[in-house]
């Protein structure tokens, strides 16, 4: 279960000229207070909201570009750009993630680009995600992932020789191979053409459902959301609510 409690997100448009301390110090309450007074130039993107995502559930958050939906995912993953300021608690399976470094959060993330490492083979890309185990077991896990990506025999191929759909499947398998406890989907089907979209989408949702982990997807396309899944939307004034 992934819980977001009292999360808000704002943008400091004048960040580069500001001292770092203005952004990173001070309790959330103080900075909220000063933001409400509106004297520090912060632009509120997402108003306070809370959200619970159960294991196996895929929640879709809709919003136009620039609404802060990708930054929300970065906040959950621990990679928020310092131009943004976020408050609130991220709780994964009962433990707070706020003070956990990003590489120890066990939160997987998929982007609209597949972001396969270009200097590694397909197999090495997957191995990169396999946890520390005896090497034969790691290789076995990598091969299982390859099989599930329906890419048997592609182990030694460089990523750029794969088709868009194949790359998308490898990227998903790479994320899942690290055994994440939650997964964040950042417009993952955006760059795929209409023909591929449907199949990659079904493939992705099926494999996430199988892992029984909470998933949060952001998109600006209603059609991306899984059928019967919960859909939230960001309104023009930063309110997060049901559609």
């Amino acid at each position, binding site marked *: 279960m992934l819980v977001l409690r009292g999360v808000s997100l704002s943008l400091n448009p004048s960040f*580069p000229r500001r001292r*770092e301390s203005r952004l990173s110090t001070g309790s959330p309450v103080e900075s909220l207070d000063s933001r409400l007074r509106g004297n520090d130039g912060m632009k509120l993107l997402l108003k306070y909201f809370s959200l619970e995502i159960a294991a196996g559930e895929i929640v879709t958050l809709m919003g136009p570009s620039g609404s802060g939906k990708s930054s929300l995912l*970065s906040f959950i*993953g621990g990679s928020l750009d*310092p131009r943004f300021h976020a408050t609130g608690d991220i709780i994964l399976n009962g433990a707070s993630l706020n*003070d956990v470094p990003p*590489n120890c959060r066990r939160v997987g993330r998929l982007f609209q680009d597949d972001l396969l490492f270009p200097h590694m083979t397909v197999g090495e890309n997957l191995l990169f995600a396999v946890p520390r185990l005896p090497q034969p077991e790691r290789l076995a896990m990598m091969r299982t992932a390859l099989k599930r990506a329906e890419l048997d025999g592609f182990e030694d191929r460089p990523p750029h020789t794969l088709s868009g759909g194949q790359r998308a499947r490898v990227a998903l398998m790479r994320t899942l191979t690290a055994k994440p406890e939650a997964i964040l989907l950042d417009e993952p089907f955006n760059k795929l053409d209409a023909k591929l979209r449907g199949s990659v989408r079904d493939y992705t949702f099926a494999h996430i459902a199988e892992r029984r982990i909470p998933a949060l997807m952001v998109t600006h396309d209603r059609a991306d959301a899984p059928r019967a899944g919960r859909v939230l939307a960001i309104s023009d004034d930063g309110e997060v609510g049901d559609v």
Partner: protein
Amino acid sequence: MAEVKTFSPGGTKTSRFVPALGAIPVVILFVVPLALSLLFVLPSLVDVTGFVSLFEHPQFWGSLRLTLFTGVTSTVLALVLAIVIVAQGTSSAPLGHLLHEGVEKGQNPTYRPFSTPSWSRWPQIIHGAPDEVPSTPQAGTMLALPHLAFAIGLGFLIAPTGLLARLIANLFTGWTEPPQWQTVQDANGIGLIIALVLKETPFIVWAVASVLNREDVKRAFEGQRMVARSLGHGERAIWLKVLLPQVMPRIIWPLVAVFSYGMTVVDMALVIGPAQPPTLANLIWTDLNDGEVLANGRGAAGVLVLTGIIAALLGVAVALVKGAQPLLHNFYSSPAHNELKLAPSRPLWKIIKLIYLLVVFVLVLQSFSGLWPFPQLIAEQLSLKSWLRLLQDGKPLFTSLLLALATTATALLACLMWLENSSVKQDRIVLLACGLSLCLPPLLIAVGQYRLFLQLGLTGTATGLFLAHVLPVTAYVFIMLQGPYRAFDPRWRSVSDGVAASSWRFYFRIKLPLLKAPLLGAAAVGFAVSMAQFVTAQLAAAGRFSTLPMEAVTLASGSNRPLFATYALALMLLPLLVFLLASIFSRSRWSVA
């Protein structure tokens, strides 16, 4: 009204034949002399007597051993240090701030990634400040110091009577005699290696940073970092497994240049390198300065052997890297492990910066010193004598300054004319020439150029001296300008055409002002390059002219240490001053959020 134009800046409207005209200066000043110089080296390839007498030279094998040791060690060490330095700063995304940290404190928040061990600061740690592309003038401060001047200052720092020994004597040991250190002109070339490593490490860091700061690379790497992080890998592992393997192929040519320079450097080695035997480059240098035909042939043979050795070693390096691929790929795909040990905040980079400061400081001390007996930290008498002498015998200073200004202006103009009048495709010819003149040993070009000038009667003339300087300056200026110039957004031109502005108006009111920073950066680099020329300049001058580096090298064998330091400082301060001016004037009118 019919419009007739012979030269139309802006490109699009130029007639088919004009490009050839505009391209001529670069060709005449740079491409042709370089090609001819290389051509004039060729006859030495079949000069058997030259090779025979080289191999019979009693010091040849000792010199060769020294050159291999100093050249390979310094390059490998500098590369490793640069990789560690970047890793220590890897906390923040592109490492641009690393280079101009301190210069721009007022504008960019300076990140001290690991100083507060609080995980809640991770987001800031990871991203660093946005907008941290270092403009060349800011990145260049360390690179602007001429190698020779740096070596002289380093010598005053680490020599047995140097500041370091005096500090130790005063603080700890109470020495009354200088220690028996073998640090400067030592038989193994350790002093030379230290000087080369300190000088080349910032250059490699700069090369890496300029790859990391490219917009497309930055975007791709940012995504890959986030993915790698979400897969459990820590920042240093990401640098070594994901980013560095993609950066390395892009810094191959800077590395080749570093290696080639380290194997063939003459001026630095004359000051701080071993003497008996000297490095192979200096053995050759003695021969090349010898008027006798036989000695000169031996020197030319030596240059060819040295070039062959460099090529062979590069081949070995390529083979080693190829052979190590399976191992490397095992490493790339190795599992994540918890990387919780906190690295201190970039200590290595700070140490290098401190050494640079000390080098300048000790040169200043020495240049004003009168009598300065050993263990004392400050000279007994201070004196302006050396500075007055620098100005009184002002010819070398004046010649260097004039040459630097003239060659920089010429190279800038020539490069602008080329860029305005030729296509990106045609750039490749000039870029190839730039690559050759940077990666081939300067000694090789010098030998050919010397013979070419003899044929043309240019040896010992002002024209010859000017040409010898303008060649490397053009190479650097072109490399600095080509990228920004070709990346210039063509839509500006459309906007300008839309308001019916003339080509010239567009050029001077819009294009040049928008390209102000790279232009000033290129000018500063060109100036520094001209100031530092020694090998080709000395051969072209043939004793008729003297420049600051030539004077400084001559003083190295004398005993007037204050004067030696003063010349080194003059050599160092002029480029620094130009860099400072360039960075002041390249600031934009207002910063865009």
